[in-house]
């Protein structure tokens, strides 16, 4: 079982290293969207500090959306996806491995960049710590939930837009609890509740979404 996971993760990371522009696009998108706000809204540190958690979270959400389109589509087009479905392995496990690789390539860099962008928007040390932790807990959930949408919209014309319409509403709870953690810390009400809920989302989506995505992939292949 673990060998399937390691084979798939290594395969997807190797493929991404051979074609780094795909990963870089969503990363630069994240940086650019965040750095537009000081220019567009206001360079005042007080204003920026208030909106920073929301800005970084929304940008992370959109960057994830951008990269989700390619989660299965390349494998779908060259026929490796139908081979995966026919392998004597659990498809849900292969999906979970693909999503893990996807998160390591697109979610983890967002986590690493969050403290820098937090500084740029004038967040304090404690705020940055909490925000980075919410991104760390939240982005895997985005990748996992997004994989269902990516599987359902495979081979559909205009699938990218449809994917956003399907998936963005499902991201709303993550966004609320992610940004809420920073404001409730500032309000002095503690962050445990937000982190528990984000953790619960992560555990639930780890358990459920691979099966849903695997089923959606089988439907898309017909």
């Amino acid at each position, binding site marked *: 079982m673990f060998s399937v996971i390691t084979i798939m993760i290594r*395969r997807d990371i190797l*493929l991404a290293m051979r074609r780094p522009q795909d990963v870089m696009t969503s990363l630069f998108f994240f940086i650019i969207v965040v750095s537009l706000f000081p220019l567009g809204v206001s360079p005042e540190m007080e204003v920026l500090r208030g909106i920073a958690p929301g800005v970084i979270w929304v940008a992370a959400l959109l960057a994830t959306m951008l990269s989700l389109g390619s989660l299965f589509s390349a494998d779908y087009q060259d026929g490796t996806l139908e*081979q995966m479905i026919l*392998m004597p392995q659990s498809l849900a496990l292969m999906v979970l491995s693909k999503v893990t690789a996807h998160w390591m390539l697109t979610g983890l860099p967002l986590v690493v960049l969050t403290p820098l962008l937090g500084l740029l928007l004038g967040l304090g040390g404690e705020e940055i710590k909490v925000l980075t932790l919410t991104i760390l807990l939240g982005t895997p959930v985005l990748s996992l939930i997004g994989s269902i949408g990516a599987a359902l919209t495979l081979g559909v014309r205009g699938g990218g837009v449809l994917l956003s319409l399907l998936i963005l509403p499902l991201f709303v709870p993550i966004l609320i609890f992610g940004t809420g953690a920073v404001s409730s810390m500032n309000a002095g009400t503690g962050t445990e509740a937000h982190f528990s809920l984000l953790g619960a989302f992560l555990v639930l989506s780890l358990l459920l979404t691979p099966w849903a995505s695997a089923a959606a992939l089988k439907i898309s*292949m*017909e």
Partner: protein
Amino acid sequence: MLDILDLECVRGDHLLFTGLRFSLKPGELLHVKGANGSGKTTLLRTVCGLSQAERGAVHWDGSPIRKQGEYFRGELTYIGHHNGVKEDLTVLENLRITMMLAGQLYSDEVLIGALTQIGLGERIDLPAKSLSQGQRRRVALARLLLTQTKLWILDEPYTALDVAVIQVLQQVIAEHLQRGGMVLLTTHQDVDIEGVVKQLMLST
């Protein structure tokens, strides 16, 4: 043993075939013939389990494939229209990863041996995107030289291949049949393989 029981397949609103029955015993090859659009690919994909039949069932060793799941998929090698070859991986990496996912581990020497036999020995370290259509087809077909599965389902395996490779492939299929394997294939060319070759004609 593979049994097709009263299979009915449709594409869109169009009925492709209905009441299709045949069975394939160890050592037999079934050559599926028919004009373009007669449902050859749909039949093959349904037998694999990639597509669902409208009616009827596919049985392997006496029970429906849908209930067998991974067991049936472990007995099957399917090569479809798409080669399932990653352009950014090298020829050797492609074959290695496919065999690993199929749960069959081979040393690099064995993998290179298979690739050499199918005429890719000089190109094992080239990315697949630098290969021609026929060479990519060979990367996909190299699996057949190694795999230990019993049932091979090959959709137009000869496409883009030159005469020499077609002969290697026919030899490999003949050996597979001698070992008691089963083959289901479509092609518009003549099948010149030693062994029990049955034919099925799909009409439009």
